[in-house]
């Protein structure tokens, strides 16, 4: 509005210019006021969401960041014991916790394995999900049944399926080894050998993750127009060429989102690791979150500041990942 007034006044020569009352300079304050007066309805509508988010996301996040900058442990935080109130005595220590964490060889070991675990899980889950989705995206007898059956792992609560896998993997009484031994093959120490345990936990996480990938990618596949395939076929494109040049590009919007989500979930997949191996054997399968848990809930006095530090570091790592992921996609012309 203000931009328009200037020139329109200037374009009116000859007319008697009556200097009207000067418009007040457009300050920030008036902008806010105007935004409120114009959009008050919208603000009222989003207020509940903002408040709920602030309480369930913002408060724990803010508290976690604050604790990571202190030396808070169980022994110096505020406590209420019956009528006795013990005030908090922990102190602000700046970035000391972060310096300690990055200097700790344990942190680097866990970080390396967490990255290996995430990359392995996400890539296998994505490939399998894509393969299954492609298979189910055509007319096959009993398609509905297959789709149902493949979604089952998703429909069972995660911890229930992890427990079932625990039984299957049991070296001495598990079903898997019973079958192997019955077939004359030596029993495999599924969760008792460090290397095999790593493969075992990845397998379970893939099993849990495939249905989501498959359903999401199947949706993506069905949104690719069929005439593209027809046209390609007319031009003599082979099945691989059609997959490579129609299916994959057509799936990109879905793929980018599910890969990002899957990465974040896998990076922090506490239940699979904790319930299957508790991070063991030894500490072979310990990822960053399970290690942070170990530090908070096993040691005494429980160290709230260190585990908060690890939590914030995990958040930062994922933020950095999401940021670069987005940038790479943007560079490739993806509207995201």
């Amino acid at each position: 509005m203000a931009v328009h007034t200037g020139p329109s006044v200037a374009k009116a020569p000859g007319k008697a210019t009556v200097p009207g009352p000067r418009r007040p300079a457009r300050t920030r304050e008036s902008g806010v006021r105007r935004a409120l007066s114009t959009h008050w309805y919208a603000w009222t509508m989003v207020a509940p969401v903002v408040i709920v988010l602030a309480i369930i996301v913002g408060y724990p996040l803010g508290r976690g960041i604050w604790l990571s900058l202190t030396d808070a442990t169980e022994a110096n935080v505020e406590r209420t014991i019956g009528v006795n109130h013990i005030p908090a005595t922990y102190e602000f220590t700046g970035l000391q916790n972060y310096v300690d964490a990055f200097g700790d060889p344990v942190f680097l070991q866990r970080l390396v394995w967490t990255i290996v675990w995430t990359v392995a899980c996400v890539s296998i889950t994505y490939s399998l999900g894509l393969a299954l989705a492609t298979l189910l995206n055509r007319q096959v007898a009993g398609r509905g049944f297959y789709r149902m059956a493949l979604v089952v792992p998703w429909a069972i609560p995660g911890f229930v399926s992890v427990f079932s896998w625990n039984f299957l993997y049991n070296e001495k009484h598990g079903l898997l080894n019973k079958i192997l031994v019955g077939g004359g093959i030596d029993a495999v120490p599924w969760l008792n050998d460090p290397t095999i345990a790593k493969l075992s936990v990845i397998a379970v996480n893939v099993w849990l993750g495939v249905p989501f990938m498959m359903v999401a990618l199947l949706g993506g596949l069905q949104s690719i127009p069929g005439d593209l395939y027809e046209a390609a076929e007319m031009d003599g494109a082979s099945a691989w060429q059609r997959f490579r040049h129609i299916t994959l590009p057509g799936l990109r919007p879905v793929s980018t989102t599910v890969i990002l989500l899957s990465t974040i979930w896998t990076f922090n997949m506490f239940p699979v690791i904790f319930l299957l191996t508790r991070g063991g054997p030894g500490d072979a399968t310990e990822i960053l979150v399970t290690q942070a848990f170990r530090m908070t809930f096993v040691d005494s006095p429980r160290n709230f500041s260190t585990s908060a530090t690890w939590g914030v570091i995990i958040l930062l790592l994922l933020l950095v990942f999401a940021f670069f992921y987005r940038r790479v996609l943007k560079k490739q012309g993806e509207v995201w």
Partner: protein
Amino acid sequence: MRRGIAATALVASLALAATACGGDTTDESGAKGGKSGGELAGTVTWWDTSTVGSEDKVFKALAEGFEKEHPKVKVNYVNVPFADAQNKFKNAASSGSGAPDVIRSEVAWTPDFASLGYLAPLDGTAALDKEDDYLKQAAASTKYDGKTFGVPQVIDSVGIFYNKKLLKEAGVEVPKTLDELTEAAKVIKSKTGKAALYLRGDDAYWFLSFLYGEGGDMINTKDKSVTIDDKPAIDAFKAVKELVDSKAAVTDATNGWDNMQKAIKDGEVAMAINGPWAVTDTLAGDAFKDKANFGVAPVPAGSKTAGSPQGGHNYAVYAGSKNLDASYEFVKYMSSAKVQAEVTEKLSLLPTRASVYGEPKVAENEIVQFFKPVVETAVERPWVPEGGSLFAPLQTQYTKVLTGQATPEQAAKSTGDSYRKLLKDYK
């Protein structure tokens, strides 16, 4: 718009965080209960951690017996799984709401809770009754900083549970040393096809008797030094690795408890290391349908001695309890000679009062007969607040040795480093 929302959310969350850090105090007063005209009244909530299915019914019935002696008191029995109880109690005790009045506190938890101010000192209260009657070892874990914070409930240690039939078939005696165990294992394997010993590979508590057997310990509280990386500890790591490598012992790095119980109950192994708390469960197994088939012996000695860790449980009273008088009285009742004798009769757990061992029913109990001398010579664990935390680093390294991820030397050194981090003033 989007940015606006984000900004609002940020401001809101910062404001909330700021107020939350200021702290909110809620005074809880006007607690009901206590003494009314000399008679106890109100509710006493007790968190028990005993095994569900075998032990909990007995303790619940006994706890409710308190209501008969004090009709106005209601006992609220809550069974909390042992594995969760420590954190659950800490959370409840520090927030000031939801904590029980009385908790069955494991011996290592007691100094931990006491150091954080969660427990009421019991000196001079009704809870400490006939103090001289308690076994000295059992009472040791209740002291912290010169005060008493618990009343011993049960005391325990570990021994070898063995399948008499299997050992007889193989024609071997219960091994008294690790060397004998290795020899016997070969015979047991060739005659019966079974493994000799199940060794829990996922819990460091099962490593302690080997550590003591080589003359080692985790830490020395007298001169404040870490001893887990000394030579005896390295020898102990070597000894357990040797047992597993020679196939004298079978082990697991995960699910050790379930696998161990299944193995001994189904007669798949001849022996397992365990304590009185597992007797009821073990006897329920197929291999022990004839109870006479079940035998208990001391843990095999290492190169230096035979030693097993002392464990057990105490009754402790929450410092913030609204009904302290009734809680003290409840603890007194639960740890009385009469109740202890009943616990032993029904569950074969070892009493903590010297006088109870004289009761005919207790004295005749085979499990008690066996474990009493074991407990008397059991090695006391370090009763420091960090005592319970010493297990996690040791367990990681113990499993690493058994699965070949670390040498005994590396494991000992790594555990020692963790201990020095945990215990700030130890050398």
